[in-house]
């Protein structure tokens, strides 16, 4: 039987314009629209709790796409995503709570401020490479969180600040469902931007910098410009995610933005697939839902083995580590390549050789 969900055996492209089309074939476009429709219709038949989880997944996806622009496209490792999320969240909190600005102005401003901060910490990237740069971003992580928790007059120090959910005219986005819609629309815009970014001059420069920066420089690519730009664009989306997250949880506090958050985001893009927009989303969903799933399993096990409760609470950390290692060893391309493999399997089925 011909599988309706996959492409035909190949695409015959006769012009450059056809090659540059966003969707390679009709069925690919159909699949994407089906996916979008599913994402939009999900709130109609799920509980409030599930919608909350989905919102978190969506916000994480925006941040993960942001990080993937830096790490997957430009090839620069960042261990500071947590702090950049914090910059976004705090900018939004300060602008809306202290200065009473509207959320709709605060959200892009949060992105811009984070982009500026990210760009600043990206400046050393011209001279630093690889691990040295990774540590510079780790330093950014610690320094930013230190400033946030010490600058009490502005940020409220370790106590944090509280925010409110946004409104749109007379319409309030305080319910989980309406907030989910807001996030999913922003995610779609982000994904569209990131997908198109690779197809532009800037995006191709990013890829060249990633693959071999010295070679890229020889070809006339301004390394400094594109490296800092990679940091700024990436941080912009991380800042947007931070702002959305802050308005969702309605509280910001330095402890939400620690190094473990940075590591989770790195795990998202590695498990999802470096340099893949779809992978970023898959990875973000996977890492966000992993602790939820594990908690369910643990709760179930504790019913039968109550004495294990104490030990099992550390079980999450343990499994998180194992999952990362197994993915890296057995599926280095991440979930995105698993998805491609699955598609190829059906494409060739039943003649797999």
């Amino acid at each position, binding site marked *: 039987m011909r599988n309706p969900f996959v492409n035909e055996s190949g695409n015959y492209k006769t012009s450059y314009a056809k090659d540059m089309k966003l969707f390679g074939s009709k069925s690919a476009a159909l699949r994407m629209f089906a996916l979008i429709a599913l994402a939009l219709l999900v709130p109609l038949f799920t509980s409030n709790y599930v919608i909350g989880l989905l919102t978190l997944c969506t916000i994480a996806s925006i941040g993960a796409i942001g990080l993937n622009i830096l790490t997957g496209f430009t090839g620069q490792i960042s261990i500071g995503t947590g702090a950049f999320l914090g910059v976004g969240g705090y900018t939004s909190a300060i602008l809306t709570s202290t200065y009473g600005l509207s959320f709709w102005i605060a959200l892009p401003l949060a992105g811009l401020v984070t982009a500026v901060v990210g760009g600043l910490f990206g400046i*050393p990237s011209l001279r630093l490479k*690889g691990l*040295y740069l990774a*540590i510079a971003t780790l330093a950014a992580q*610690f320094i930013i969180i230190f400033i946030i928790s010490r600058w009490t007059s502005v940020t409220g120090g370790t106590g944090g600040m509280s925010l409110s959910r946004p409104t749109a005219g007379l319409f309030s986005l305080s319910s989980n469902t309406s907030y989910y819609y807001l996030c999913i629309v922003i995610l779609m815009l982000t994904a569209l931007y990131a997908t198109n970014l690779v197809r532009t001059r800037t995006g191709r420069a990013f890829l060249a910098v990633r693959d071999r920066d010295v070679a890229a420089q020889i070809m006339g690519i301004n390394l400094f410009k594109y490296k800092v730009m990679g940091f700024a664009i990436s941080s912009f989306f991380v800042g947007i995610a931070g702002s959305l997250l802050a308005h969702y949880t309605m509280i910001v506090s330095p402890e939400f933005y620690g190094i473990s958050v940075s590591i989770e985001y790195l*795990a998202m893009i590695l498990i999802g697939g470096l340099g893949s927009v779809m992978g970023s989303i898959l990875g973000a969903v996977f890492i966000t839902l992993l602790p939820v799933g594990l908690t369910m399993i643990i709760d179930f096990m504790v019913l039968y083995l109550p004495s294990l409760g104490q030990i099992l*609470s550390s079980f999450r950390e343990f499994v998180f580590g194992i999952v990362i290692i197994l993915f890296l060893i057995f599926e280095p391309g991440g979930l995105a390549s698993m998805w491609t493999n699955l598609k190829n399997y059906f494409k060739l089925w039943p003649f797999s050789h």
Partner: protein
Amino acid sequence: MTFFIQMLITGIVVGSIYGLVALGFVLIYRASDALNLANGEFVIIGAYICLTLMTAYQVPFIIALAITLVFSMLLGLLVERLVIRPLQNAPVISVIMATIGLSSLLAGLVHMIWGHQTKKFPLIFPATPLEVGGVIITPVYLWSFIIVIILLILFSVFFKFSKMGIAMRAVADDKQAASSMGISVKKVYAITWAIAAVVAAVGGVLLGNINGVSPTMATIGLTVLPVVILGGLDSILGAIVGGFIIGILQSMAGGYLDPLIGGGLKEVAPFIVVLLILMIKPYGLFGRGGTERV
């Protein structure tokens, strides 16, 4: 002045332990071009094993230490075999992420086995503090310092003169050339990881004697990163010098500046300094940049 000297001594002692732990980082970087972000967990696992042997099984310190070192060596070999070797041809970020995963895995294990509370080490070194001209030196500090210095000298001699040490330096310099000269790169990798784990465990036991053992001690893995970067990722001398600089700096920041701003600077100061240093010397004080061919 007394306060200054006191802070200086604390800094030197803590710095020497930093140098020891940083040595583990440098070794692994030179062998496999990767940071081992699970080094902090290697440190606490060593400390916990030694502690458990001494408290639960009443093993004398020296024997407990010996068993700890053997166990750490096995841990290092196991990690190299199961996690690092399969990733030998993977990009750097994969190896870093694998060690992050490893650190999460080991941290989970440590919590499951030993819980979250801080545990006191039984007294090994005499408790009565020495007083020299108003400056108080606890014997733990003195002994830790002496042990670290002896170890660092031993390692330097080992790298300089022993056959294995020379092989390790050869592999660090050029893997392909080394393997064509008949050096088993695999064996060198395995031994490097074993040594790094052993060094971390010694650091753990000493730190445990100073501060007690708790899972939060694993953050030393991150604290030591500025040390390694400051000295240069590929320089053993750099690790030692960097250790002293960061140790003294932290101690001074903690002693003089923290009371003024309400604490926390002690942990951040090394990172600020490292960021500034990297702007001037991108490969640390003693690191080599190397040339790149396209």
